[in-house]
Structure formats: structure tokens, C-alpha cells
């Protein structure tokens, strides 16, 4: 009979109308500034540089300026300049550090390929999405000081992922130490026969140089 389809349609919208008052499933609006939706753990926006300690983020950057992410970034929006001198990193090894490390967030499409290819876990995805800027060039080009954030901040935004990364780094560091101790012991053993030959001429032995960790 003509009109039954229309009546059924009206009934559906009526059910939605009454539902919107009591059924949370039928009232989906979130009033943004007052109520904020919680972001899922894997959410990613623009990258940031992880630094070891919170009090001196610029000094203790994990990044060693190997420029792999600069090469792999599809829209080429990362600009790195290697430093001339070296600086001890967390494991005490002398490493380069990025004198200039800036990401042009107007070009970056937050695809997190840089995070995947970084061998040192020094760049991770941030969760800040309220970044309005007035100037297109200065404000959107995030320089090193605005990119560097502490590892504790990393734990705060990506708890599981951060724990897993730290676990892996600690394990690697342990392996590196054992290898270093083994190498040192081997060197000491080799050095003992030489020492017995000319104990007087050997100068004060410099601190044992640990081999660089496996790339």
C-alpha cells in the first residue's frame, strides 16, 4: 500500500530521536573543548626526538645523526647536519650528535617510516594534535630544541611501546657490556705476556677502548 515505506522510515527516525535521550549509543556527540576523547595508544602525529634525561633534553639526545631517516622520508621533510665533535652517549661511547635536526611539519604526513627505519630508536611519534601556528615558516619548522622530549614523556604517551623499547635497549646494552668485558679480558690476557717482556716501558694503560656496539 502506498505510504507504508515512508511510515516505516518515520518510525526509524522517531526511535533514533527518543533513543538520543537515554541510549548512549544513539548520542554520539562529544562537546570538544569541555570533554576530550581519550586517544588510543598507537595514535601518531608528528615525530619527536627521544632524549635520555629529562633535565637536559638537548644534551642527552639518543640520535647519532646517521641520517637514515632523512634518506628514507618519502616527502623529504627532515633536515639533519652532523656535528663536528663527538659527545659520550648513554653507554659512555663517543657518538656524533645532530647539530641541526629540524622537521618541516607543513610537509610531514606523519607516516612514521622514520620511526621504522631508525636503528637507534631515537625518533618516535608524538600524540600532540592541537598545534595551531600563526607563521607558516618559522612556527611549522620544528627545530631540535622543540623536537627533543624526554624518555619519561615517551613512557607517558606510549606506555607499552616505550617499555618494550627500553627492555630491548637494556638487553642490547648488557650484551655490549659482556662483549666489552670479554674483549677487555682477552686484551688483558694478551697484554700480560707483553707486559712481562717490558714492564718498565709500558706507559699508564689508557682506559680500555670498548668496540663500537653492533650497527
Amino acid at each position, binding site marked *: 500500500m*502506498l*505510504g*507504508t*515505506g*515512508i511510515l*516505516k*522510515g518515520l*518510525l*526509524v*527516525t522517531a526511535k*533514533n530521536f527518543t533513543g538520543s535521550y537515554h541510549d548512549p549509543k544513539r548520542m*554520539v556527540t562529544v562537546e570538544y573543548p569541555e570533554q576530550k576523547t581519550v586517544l*588510543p*595508544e*598507537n*595514535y*601518531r602525529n608528528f615525530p619527536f626526538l627521544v632524549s635520555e634525561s629529562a633535565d637536559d633534553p638537548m644534551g642527552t639526545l639518543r640520535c647519532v645523526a646517521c641520517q*637514515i631517516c632523512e634518506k*628514507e*622520508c*618519502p616527502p623529504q621533510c627532515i633536515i639533519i647536519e652532523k656535528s663536528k665533535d663527538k659527545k659520550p652517549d648513554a653507554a659512555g661511547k663517543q657518538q656524533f650528535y645532530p647539530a641541526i635536526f629540524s622537521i618541516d611539519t607543513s610537509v610531514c*604526513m*606523519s*607516516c*612514521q*617510516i622514520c620511526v*621504522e*627505519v631508525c636503528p637507534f630508536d631515537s625518533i618516535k*611519534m608524538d600524540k600532540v594534535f592541537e598545534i595551531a601556528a600563526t607563521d607558516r615558516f618559522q612556527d611549522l619548522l620544528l627545530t631540535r630544541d622543540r623536537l627533543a622530549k624526554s624518555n619519561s614523556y615517551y613512557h607517558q604517551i606510549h606506555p607499552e611501546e616505550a617499555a618494550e623499547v627500553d627492555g630491548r635497549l637494556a638487553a642490547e646494552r648488557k650484551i655490549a657490556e659482556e662483549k666489552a668485558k670479554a674483549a677487555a679480558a682477552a686484551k688483558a690476557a694478551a697484554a700480560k705476556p707483553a707486559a712481562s717482556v717490558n714492564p718498565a716501558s709500558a706507559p699508564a694503560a689508557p682506559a680500555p677502548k670498548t668496540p663500537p656496539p653492533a650497527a
Partner: protein
Amino acid sequence: MSCSDQTGLDAELLAFGRQSGPTVRAVHDQFHGDLLEVSMGPQHPSTHGVFRMVATLDGEQIVKLKPVFGYLHRNHEKIAENTTYLGSMPYTDRLDYLCSMTTNWAYALAVEKLSGQAVPDRAQYLRIIMGELTRLVNHSCLVGFLFNDLGTSFTPLLYAFREREKILDLFESLSGSRMMCNYQRFGGCRVDPSPAWLAAARALVDNFPRFLDEYERMLTGNEIMLARTQGVGRLDPAHAVNAGLTGPVLRASGVDYDIRKVDGYGFYPRFDFRVPLGAHGDTYDRYMMRILEMRESVKILQQAFKDLPAGPIMDPKAKIRGFRPKPGEAYGRIEGPKGELGFYLISDGSPNPYRYRVRPPSLINLTLLEEMCLGHTIADSVVILGSIDIVLGEVDR
């Protein structure tokens, strides 16, 4: 259409009628007077993005319709020749921005065929899950937009978006971004979904049919909907096959061609699902194709969740950097929500592809727009365009 005198006009009209393109009824009648040329778009509220239709009208009826596009051309294929294989993966999200997971899958499939890369079982199942979830997202979007073109004030669109947002929240908690997922890699997937995610996805899929029933109750039997879409934009199967149309638009005309059944790529042969076919090939059939396909996708998803195997999600031998496939060419294609989405790659051994070509189903389904719209009114042409389901990102690349 310059105002020449009466006899000149007739000659011009007849010449006009015989121009190339499908046969145009020679409109020649004292009563008709000038034809009105109306250009709809590119800033038009209902052309799904920057797309322009130059329609020549005789009163309300369309005599000639010329689609104009290219406003969103971003030179995707040339850029891909200067980026590494992995670098192009995030760009494939931007092709058909409504279903990024399926486009990623098609690209990953093509590269795996090129480099002979194996994919573990769990990754194949995850790809099917993500692919079918994207089909739900795309079809619910399309159905919402179609009703918007038909003239409802946003109610069906917002019901459809309510369901789509739930699926996009799942994608966000898995891959990190709602629409730009960048989830597939050559040889598997990037993130292993947590059991909590799988439970949430299963719950969503189990009550998705409730949304479809509400939709069908509200709109499929609606007399105005029947009157506005049945018999409008009829597409004859032979023309569709000759023009190379694929996807729900082709199946609505009754041609049985679904690449999931034809190629049997991924683990689709293990799943039992049916492919709906239309009989009249008009806008109503195309709408019903999407609704029935959504129901089939829900069945596939339920089977996939039931027997999702454990195991690695990434083939151990897969290399992230320094990926240099051996020289050769490959064409990988999947049944995307809009039709056969294919990637044709030629590799010369270097990290960048020598040639990178996308087969865009939206563009190819668009070629027959004029033939469908002839004889109908402006209001119908907007509905027909909506029923073909084009996304300008894929049309212009």
C-alpha cells in the same frame, strides 16, 4: 551556444548531434529553442570533490554531458618513480582516501609478486580482516552520500557515519591514524592487533547487521526512493564490459565478475561468501549491491575472526631498507570496494620502481557517465554520479 539565426541554429543542432561520443538524439524542434549549457562544479555541493560536469540541457533534460576532471592531479605516479618502494606506501593511502587499507594491500601484493616475497598466514588473515572492514567503511560512506544527493537532510548520512566512525576508531587504535593507515608492508603487516582490539572488532562486526537492518527498514522500501532510483541511469551489461567497468557497478548490471572469486588472491578461497548480482543495472540495483555486499563482508569477517591463526605477522626474510627487487614487471590487483584496483610495476633492480602505474576503478567507472545520464534530468545526473561512487583522489591521482 551563440545565438545564430533560426536556420543556422538547426544546422548547428544537427551537426552538434552527430559529434563523437554516444549517439545523441538529434534534438530538432521548433518548440525547443536554445539549449541551456550548465556547468556543475568543480565547486558544487554534490560532486564528491573537485569534479565538473558540463551538461547541455533541453529544458530539464540532459542532451549532452561532458565530465571534466584533473583538478586534484598530484602527479602520484611520477613521484613514485623517484621514491623507494617503501616510500610510496604512505602515498597509496592518499589515492582513495576512503579505503586506505585496501589500496595498501593492492600495492603490497604487487610488490610481493614482483620480488617473490612470501607472506605468513596470520598476516594474510589480518589483510582480509582489514580489507573487509574497509569495504564496510566505503560502502556505508557511499550509501550515506547517495541519500544526501537524493535530497534527505543528512539523516541517513549521519547514521552511516556513526557506524563508519566506530570502524575508523578501530583503525586508529591499530595503525595510528583513522584514514591514513599505512599499515601493510611487503611481506606482512606492521602492527599485531592486541586481543582487546580483536574482541572490540568482533563485537562491532557482530552488531553491524543491526545498522543495516535499520537502514533497510528506513530507506529501501521508501516509495520516494523507489521512484527516484529505479529505472534511472540504466547501464547495459555489454556496454559495461566493453568500457572495462568493474566492481559493484558492473555486478549491478548482472555481470558475474568479482576478483576475489576470479583470482582467489590472499586466502579468499578458504572463506565461503556469495557475490550478489543485479538484474536491471539501474541506480537502485547499484545501491542494493552495496547493501548486500556489506552483509557478505560481515560474514567473511566473522569467519576470519573465528579462525585467525597465531604466528608472526611479518616474514622474517623481509627487508625494510635497501629493498631492491630483481628487474622485471608485475601486476597485482584486488577487488577494492570501488572495483578492480591494480598496481603495475616495472623494476630495473634499483631501489626505485622504473614504472609505477595504478589502475583506478573510479576513473574507469566514470567513462560511461554520459551514456547513463542521457535523457534524464539534472536531479538524476547527480544521483547517477553518486551511485557510481567515485573518489577524486583516485580519479585524478
